[in-house]
């Protein structure tokens, strides 16, 4: 409505001014604008109606006197509600009856809410609203229906502003619960019908960045809205540091030791991780765990949509994996313009034909990186995937079971795989016919996780179990401490006042920038 009216301003301005003038004259004492206005609206018929109301009131009083208040109320209710049904079909002659109905509602204000609602719903609609409407909404509807009998006044209305503008915290909480419930219902209607268990397989080992990576993954997994078991395989046996990290997640965890230590060479690490994943699959098979297996490496970054998508998988699915190969290492050679042009999207995943079936694979082109990749963990060079990553595959765990209902015949037995120590590159080896893989994530068009390998230098130190023990020395003193600093070690730092002043000039408040500059100085 307003859209149409808005730019007519020029046209209307004169009219508005006129109406303003008139209202300022006429509506001088319009504090109770509503009442005054409605009287005016009733116009010449006013005396007739007032007599009618008076007579009706007298009649009601008499009836209640004779029958007793409670019964007369019922009588009125039954009498007028039925006439109202008829009156809505016939025309103007019945307006008197309609008015009478209004009176019943006003005289029966002391009735219970249910009766009140009932009367009004009769008038509003031949098919009354369902009984499961609560009293409150019914009352609202009733309020609206009750208003229908009154004539809305044309003219100026007050702008109602409540004295205390702030929302009631209880109501805010209620609103949030409503939204939560609505969203839950949305998931029920449109989301996955019967959520399947998610089995997350993660190979890990104790190292500098383990806590960093595992914590990130842990928080992703905590947000998965499906039942989930996290199968963590730790190379070199389970450690307390890892266990305590996992324990804080509140997830169901299966922490499995793997006898071999993690090698420092990337190629060997890759092979070891594959064997660790296979180990996890054997555990799943032994325990007959039922669900969808997701290979979540600790350093990968997962979209939550991935966990919705994997619910769709029937036997084996594949998703697109984005590869974060261009880590900004300082001594990484700059790519030539030509290389940049030829560089395909760094994505690994399934490719579909027009009918949505698997047609082939997008693989990551590692040619531009030839000879520039890291061989040892912690080396300052890009780390690339070898072949198709496990992280891009999703399995129904029943594919591993010895016997499962409807298990397709194009699946190999797990025992026949990797027994002779041959390297398992990816789960496709489990299949006789890789063309049965189901592409997920809008036919692989959506990237549902990012593959990233970042490790600290092999010789870097890291605190065990997130605890700094023994406490570190103070490297940079707090500059504005109220007490004098007289410690011997600190004086050496303070001598370097030139640097300090410079730092202070750069940023008086930003302590982190100053401390960074100090660390750099130390390294030099």
């Amino acid at each position: 409505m307003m859209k149409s009216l808005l730019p007519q301003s020029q046209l209307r301005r004169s009219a508005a001014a006129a109406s303003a003038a008139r209202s300022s004259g006429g509506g001088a004492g319009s504090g109770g604008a509503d009442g005054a206005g409605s009287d005016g609206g009733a116009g010449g018929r006013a005396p007739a109606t007032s007599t009618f109301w008076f007579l009706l009131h007298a009649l009601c009083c008499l009836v209640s006197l004779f029958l007793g208040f409670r019964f007369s109320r019922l009588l009125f209710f039954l009498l007028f509600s039925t006439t109202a049904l008829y009156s809505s079909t016939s025309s103007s002659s019945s307006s008197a009856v309609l008015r009478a109905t209004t009176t019943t509602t006003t005289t029966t204000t002391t009735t219970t809410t249910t009766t009140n609602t009932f009367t009004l719903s009769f008038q509003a609609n031949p098919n009354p609203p369902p009984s499961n409407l609560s009293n409150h909404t019914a009352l609202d509807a009733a309020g609206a229906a009750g208003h229908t009998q009154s004539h809305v006044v044309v003219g100026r209305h007050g702008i109602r502003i409540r004295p205390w503008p702030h929302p009631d915290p209880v109501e805010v909480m209620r609103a949030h619960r409503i939204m939560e419930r609505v969203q839950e219902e949305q998931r029920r209607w449109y989301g996955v019908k019967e959520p399947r268990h998610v089995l997350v397989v993660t190979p890990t080992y104790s190292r500098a960045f383990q806590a960093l990576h595992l914590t990130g993954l842990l928080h992703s997994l905590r947000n998965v809205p499906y039942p989930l078991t996290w199968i963590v395989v730790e190379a070199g046996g389970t450690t307390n540091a890892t266990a305590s990290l996992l324990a804080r997640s509140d997830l169901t965890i299966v922490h499995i030791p793997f006898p071999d230590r993690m090698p420092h060479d990337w190629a060997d690490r890759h092979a070891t991780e594959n064997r660790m994943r296979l180990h996890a699959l054997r555990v799943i098979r032994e325990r007959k765990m039922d669900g969808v297996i997701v290979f979540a490496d600790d350093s990968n970054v997962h979209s939550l949509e991935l966990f919705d998508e994997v619910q769709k998988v029937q036997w084996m699915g594949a998703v697109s994996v984005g590869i974060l190969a261009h880590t900004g290492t300082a001594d990484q050679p700059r790519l030539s313009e030509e290389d940049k042009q030829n560089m395909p999207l760094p994505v690994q995943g399934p490719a579909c034909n027009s009918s949505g079936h698997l047609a082939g694979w997008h693989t990551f082109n590692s040619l531009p990186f030839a000879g520039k990749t890291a061989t040892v963990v912690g080396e300052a060079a890009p780390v690339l995937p070898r072949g198709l990553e496990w992280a891009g595959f999703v399995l129904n765990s029943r594919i591993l079971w010895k016997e499962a209902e409807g298990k397709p015949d194009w699946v190999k037995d797990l025992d026949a795989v990797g027994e002779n120590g041959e390297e398992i590159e990816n789960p496709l080896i489990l299949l006789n016919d890789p063309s049965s893989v189901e592409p997920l994530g809008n036919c692989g068009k959506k990237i549902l996780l990012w593959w990233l390998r970042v490790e600290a230098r092999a010789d870097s130190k890291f605190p065990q179990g997130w605890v700094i023990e023994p406490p570190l020395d103070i490297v940079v003193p707090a500059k504005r401490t109220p007490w004098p600093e007289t410690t011997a070690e600190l004086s050496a730092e303070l001598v370097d006042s030139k640097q300090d002043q410079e730092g202070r000039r750069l940023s008086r408040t930003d302590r982190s920038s100053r401390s960074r500059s100090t660390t750099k100085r130390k390294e030099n």
Partner: protein
Amino acid sequence: MRRWVLAIAILAAAVCFFLGAQAQEVRQGHQTERISGSAGDVLEDDPVGRLKVYVYDLPSKYNKKLLKKDPRCLNHMFAAEIFMHRFLLSSAVRTFNPEEADWFYTPVYTTCDLTPSGLPLPFKSPRMMRSAIELIATNWPYWNRSEGADHFFVTPHDFGACFHYQEEKAIGRGILPLLQRATLVQTFGQKNHVCLKDGSITIPPYAPPQKMQAHLIPPDTPRSIFVYFRGLFYDTSNDPEGGYYARGARASVWENFKNNPLFDISTDHPPTYYEDMQRSVFCLCPLGWAPWSPRLVEAVVFGCIPVIIADDIVLPFADAIPWEEIGVFVAEEDVPKLDSILTSIPTDVILRKQRLLANPSMKQAMLFPQPAQAGDAFHQILNGLARKLPHGENVFLKPGERALNWTAGPVGDLKPW
């Protein structure tokens, strides 16, 4: 004591009867719900075979030429009059034999007169309408037979056939006297209002269906906005002192809830307007200058529960759509309590409203798609007309009887168009 028992028995019987009658049934699939007897069934009626409509062949200056002069008429919210004409021309209910027609339709585009900024002006409408009626009354015998009682007109302007956008002026004018006996198909609906006469069919305003379709987002996108509204709160140019526009209700919404985190309300129209409605639980549909606005259509189409703040509003196809059950009605004086009212609706009721809104027939009835589809607003108009059949005795005048006063109304309206 016996009186009491009797009374209670009667009451109980009545309650049982009504609960039984509206025994609501049952989800269709998982998501939608329909109510037997009212919404679902009536909305799915097929009007074909139940009525025949004769479309008067008027000179193109009453319709096509106007449109040619200003094609923008196809896009504003009163465009229903043009699309209804096009729909009827190719509809199965159209008859070329006026003798067998139940209804007569006069294709006259009274709102297709736009300002340079694209807004419809109603000033010529009365004269145009009068001229068209004079034409059909002289060229065909059917108008004089009933003086319009078996004719229907689409008058989608702000205040329908009162032909003025200012309420006070519109009330002063009243419905065009020549249309006294005709059936009006109009967007305006307010009870006890001179611009809404008995028997009118209230229709939704036109909202571009393709555009809305293009902005659909997946239905599982979580609804994370509690209350959503975009539009004016004050119309300072037309209502500088405030309190006239929207009877103060919109201003009240703003003043009370502008800082409330549950209320996503503002005056600017973002490009994601349609998407945001699909991410909201409640969408405010307050009155503006007139009680209705396209928000009503948008809310229903986008599955956002409409919060209707317009006392005495008559909603589109109210005889077929259970508005009490899909929407929330808040009295204008209760706007300061809006947050309490909305948060105290039980969740089950909210979920039921959403299930009803998810019913595709409800959405379909709000739209004027091109080409027409079964159950859309065109079909609902025809259903409404079909439900008025057969015509009552008072429709046809006795020989020599005259009901219309051809010289009534403002002098300006009597000038030739």
